[in-house]
């Protein structure tokens, strides 16, 4: 029955990888999980190519062009897409830059430092171009499930994943719903 394993992909967009750390906090439960699912593209597998998946888990919001491309690809290839953590759900801490013009953010970072010579805003095409604001991912693609928390605890993730895999409706206990 190995064929019936569900394929899961994960990625971190504009986030801090904290949600992925929380995923690792599943500890020995990861073994149980590994029996039920196979990880496709994910920082955990270090696979860079995304295959056709059953479940995609997204950490982080949308801040640049690369985030958009990754998110669109996940949406196209994953049957179920999950927003994990505060940044994916509402932009989170990175979205606090939305208080400022992009120009001010970039100038503060690249041109106003002390001792800079020929200071300029980087324009290398290798660097993903920034959007004027950071957005949660549900403003760009349809999201099927939201898993709040900064990060959601390992217990929260476990409850969610086991319910989802069992085909049950998602019902998190009170102590597992957090925005912080």
């Amino acid at each position, binding site marked *: 029955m190995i064929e019936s394993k569900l394929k899961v992909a994960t990625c971190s967009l504009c986030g801090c990888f904290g949600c992925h750390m929380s995923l690792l906090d599943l500890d020995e439960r990861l073994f149980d999980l590994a029996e039920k699912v196979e990880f496709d593209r994910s920082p955990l597998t270090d696979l860079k190519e995304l295959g056709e998946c059953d479940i995609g888990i997204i950490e982080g919001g949308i801040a640049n062009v690369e985030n958009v491309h990754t998110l669109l690809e996940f949406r196209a290839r994953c049957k179920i897409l999950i927003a994990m953590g505060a940044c994916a759900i509402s932009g*989170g801490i990175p979205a*606090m830059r939305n208080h400022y013009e992009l120009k001010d953010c970039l100038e503060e970072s690249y041109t106003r430092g002390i001792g800079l010579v020929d200071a300029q805003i980087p324009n290398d095409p290798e660097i993903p171009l920034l959007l004027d604001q950071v957005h949660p991912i*549900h403003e760009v693609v349809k999201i099927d499930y939201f898993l709040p928390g900064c990060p959601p605890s390992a217990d929260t993730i476990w409850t969610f994943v086991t319910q989802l895999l069992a085909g049950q409706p998602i019902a998190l206990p009170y102590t597992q719903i957090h*925005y912080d």
Partner: protein
Amino acid sequence: MSEEPRFTLDGRTVPFQDGQTIMAAALAAGIYIPHLCFNPEFTPHGSCRVCLVKVNGRMQASCTTPAAAGQVVQSEIDEVREIRRGLLQMLFVEGNHVCPACEKSGACQLQAVAYYVGMLAPHYTHFYPRRPVDASHPDALIDFNRCILCELCVRASREVDGKNVFAVQGRGIKAHLVVNTPSGKLGATDFSLSDKAAQVCPTGTILSKHSGYEIPIGQRLYDRKPINVVGDVAALAVSKGGRRHD
């Protein structure tokens, strides 16, 4: 024999006195109806609409609707809960509620009510308004990003403190809380942390500058038990995890 008048709330019989609102009667009977702009110490305001209930089939704000004998009131039904969730989602996208960066997190009534109604995400498109932070006062901080326009601080300052420190200006989506001085700065007022106005905010808009994160995240007021069990943060003493400075 004069029998006390009654109505039913989700099937339970609730007695009330003449002139009481549905909210007040429910509160007296120990039944929780979620709310934000309502605080039993103040005249009902009816602006947040979170305390909506179905009264004889029609949606009404329980904090402003007078109780009447024989009313059939429904509160914890899917239809009402969905609308409440929608209202919470509106409040979350209207302001900038970055819970991970807020000292009030875990002891915040807005957050607790959102937990209570089962809000997992703000759903709507975020407005990301650009609002200032006022750190001009020696002891208190105002982060306007978190204001939900409940006007509790406005009412408390006017009615209890007699200072009239706050006001709401602007129309529609431009409505915003202001400090009632020519400079608009809290530092220019006689506001004090012992004011009632400093203790009634249901969000993290008005905070003390000199204490923070004394109770770790995860062990805070609403981290383990929901608001219907714990009660409103403004009504609790510090020893119970509340924020009263008196």
